[in-house]
């Protein structure tokens, strides 16, 4: 009963988040859910069977177990990168939007500069230079994606700072820092959350692309890496769709779910219309 009510309240968020939660759970519990150890070498190039639901790859690892384990990496990278981007973007956006003046100009200049840089080529370049390392990838993606968050947060802050409660807090004796933490940040949260979800989707896509090009960390298998191996080790030629389709579908599914959640958030964070029946 309660689930039905939640669903009706906001079907988008409900569907999207259920999907995401299921996938996350599957990924988290992969060590227990996976029928085999994804690193164990068994017989290679097997077709799907009862023993191996999605067959095995070129070095004999069970693909299904691989899929589950890779979920952890892909989701993890997406999440951490989005976190870095959101944190940086929020700080920049709030400080620039609230303080204004020279600080605003400088910060926005920096934001615009980074915004202009094409993301994927930059990530590819630096990845190739720094070498494959999961932490690097996370930080890199995060540091490249924060500008769009900063812009959005800043414009929200610009309108928030005119609010009655901000003026009222000042009349109570509050300083800038108090107002930013206590009033601006909580009210910017809906926008931030919506953007976070989108950024996570975007980050996952970038990570997948980078890994697909072979610049990923071989020690940490992600869905993108699976795709890389599938294509570079002859999975495509051998028409082993059970190898190259699942990771791609998984990525698409997660991004789809995240977008649903984002749409749901956007609906909620619209300014609520005052109820006409108040009288």
């Amino acid at each position, binding site marked *: 009963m309660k689930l039905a009510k939640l669903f009706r309240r906001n079907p988008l968020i409900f569907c999207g988040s259920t999907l995401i939660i299921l996938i996350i759970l599957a990924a988290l519990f992969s060590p227990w859910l996976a029928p085999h150890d994804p690193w164990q070498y068994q017989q290679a190039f097997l077709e799907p069977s009862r023993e191996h639901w999605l067959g095995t790859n070129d070095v004999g690892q069970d693909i299904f177990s691989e899929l589950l384990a890779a979920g952890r990496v892909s989701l993890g990278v997406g999440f951490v990168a989005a976190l870095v981007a959101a944190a940086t973007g929020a700080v920049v956006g709030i400080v620039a939007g609230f303080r204004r003046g020279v600080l605003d100009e400088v910060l926005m200049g920096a934001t615009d500069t980074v915004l202009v840089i094409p993301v994927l080529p930059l990530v590819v370049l630096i990845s190739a230079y720094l070498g494959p390392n999961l932490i690097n990838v996370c930080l890199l993606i995060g540091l490249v994606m924060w500008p769009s968050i900063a812009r959005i947060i800043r414009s929200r802050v610009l309108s928030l700072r005119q*609010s*009655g409660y901000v*003026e*009222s807090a000042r*009349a*109570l004796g509050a300083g800038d820092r*108090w107002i930013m933490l206590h009033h601006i940040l909580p009210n910017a*949260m809906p926008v931030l959350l919506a953007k976070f979800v989108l950024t996570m989707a975007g980050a996952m896509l970038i990570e997948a692309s980078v890994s697909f090009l072979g610049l990923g960390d071989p020690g940490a298998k992600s869905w993108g890496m699976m795709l890389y191996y599938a294509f570079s080790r002859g999975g495509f030629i051998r028409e082993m769709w059970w190898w190259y389709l699942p990771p791609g579908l998984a990525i698409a599914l997660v991004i789809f779910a995240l977008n649903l959640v984002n749409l749901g958030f956007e609906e909620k964070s619209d300014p609520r219309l005052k109820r006409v029946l108040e009288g």
Partner: protein
Amino acid sequence: MLEVRELRKTFTLRHNIFARLGHPDHVIRAVDGVSFEVNKGEIFGIAGKSGSGKTTLGKTILRLFEPDNGSIVYKGRDISRLSPEELKGYRRQVQLVFQDADSTLDPRHKLYSILEEPLLIHGLGTRIERQVIIRCALEQVNLPYSLLERHPSELSGGQRRRAALARALVLSPELIITDEPTTGLDPVVAAQILSLFLRLNRETRLTLVVITHDLAAINYLSHRVAVMYGGKIVELVDGELFESSAVHPYTRFLQGFAVSNNVVSGYTDIHRLSETAGQGCVYAAACSVARPECFEAAPRLRQTEPGHLVACLLARG
């Protein structure tokens, strides 16, 4: 306790660069040479309609706007000379309850957090002490404790007004300036709030400045009344005498005893305010008994009888 002298605050509406060639910038003299005193423990009413500058006056007293001229002296100290630390202390002793109380309550906070905020800003009390203070404030405004867990959107209009007032009371201020406390409220709720003010003033010697256009409220509460028009005070009189002995044409108009030229024409003209360029009496253009002298010399506030000041050339001294 509070002394305001020759206070001035103007706003300039800038046109864009193209329009500027044809029209001068509009200068709005929101507060134009206002002087008055508020004594401790008294209720000082400021009567005036929107556009008279009363809201700007309230905000300037709190230094939310910087005055262009003049001085505000609170308990002997000049407000415009305060350091940021001292200003914070000032804002603890003098509170402003805004006109649109609803927008002053952060919709993402629960009522408890909203009431706690002033205490946290000034670092007062331990957690238990704060709870006690908050509950006391709620009692004073007659709101039940159960509302503490609610968000502003879950409260009625009257409850939100009272919540804003409770927040002002939490710091035990000495002076509260309240801007349009009863506008938009139903008569019973409005009466409660006005009665609340009276009670607070009597029981705790809270000094109040009530800014409103509701003359019933002014009549009910004020010990002394100042009437504002066009950024100036046009009459200053004892509360008891307000209804019977007010003399200024604008005051009489507000009370319904006289007409004003503005109303007769019926069409609104938003540029009117900037046209009275400081030459004559600020009310002359709309005054029904204006004489030619009124357009040439601006009258000063002069005493007509003890405790009664009028700024009108036609009032006998």
